[in-house]
């Protein structure tokens, strides 16, 4: 089974739901369990929320979600062209948040890491961030 999607949307918070739903619908042909669907929706929601609020802060910008299915592995890459992350390893520490004033919990990356099998973060200051996440859907 091979498949790809590209989804682009404005950084409006109402599009968090859209991205989650699209991710869930995309993975359906692999016949995932409810738990696997939940995990994917949650991980995608975290990455998209980060792009919306951290990537672009108060400015308007586009976010892209690329989905790929290869065999029984699904991969999502969420990309923004926002501010970038100064220190990726610090950003990925559990409970670290750059926005405590927005009541962020600092758990986004922790959830992505524990719900997906592999996560890869690339970021350039002033140019943007991309988060690639993979998960094998068990047969």
């Amino acid at each position, binding site marked *: 089974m091979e498949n790809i999607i590209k989804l682009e949307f404005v950084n409006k918070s109402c599009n*968090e*739901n859209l991205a989650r739903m699209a991710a869930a619908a995309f993975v359906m042909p692999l016949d995932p369990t409810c738990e696997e669907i939940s995990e994917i929706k949650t991980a995608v929601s975290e990455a998209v929320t980060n792009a919306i609020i951290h990537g672009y802060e108060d400015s308007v910008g586009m976010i892209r979600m690329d989905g790929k299915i290869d065999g029984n592995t699904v991969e999502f890459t969420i990309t923004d062209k926002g501010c970038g992350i100064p220190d990726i390893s610090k950003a990925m520490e559990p409970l670290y948040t750059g926005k405590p004033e927005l009541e962020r919990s600092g758990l986004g990356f922790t959830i992505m890491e524990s719900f997906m099998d592999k996560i890869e973060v690339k970021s350039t200051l002033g140019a943007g961030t991309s988060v690639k996440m993979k998960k094998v859907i068990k047969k």
Partner: protein
Amino acid sequence: MDLKLIGEKRTIIVNIKEDLDHHAATELRKAVDAKIKSSNAINVIFNFSKVDFMDSSGIGVIMGRYKITKILGGKVVIYGVKKQARRIIEMSGIDKLICICDTLDESLQKI
């Protein structure tokens, strides 16, 4: 989402009716804080029985209300938590700080 004030218990009951993501969290926070400001409430009970999806933004809202009610001398209690949300809550460790109940009655007794 809808809010109900039980004046004699100084408690706001929040019925969340949608996915609790960053989008919903922003609205929820505003609505609950406005109600706390305009009433005598010091406690917040969140009804999670219709929440099929929550991400870490939900943890932020709960923790934020926990801090506020603590200052006021009150409590946050949540009830009716389903499987997906329970997993996020347990991952966050906030179940060690706030009370998680099965029903509204039980929640009101913890206030």
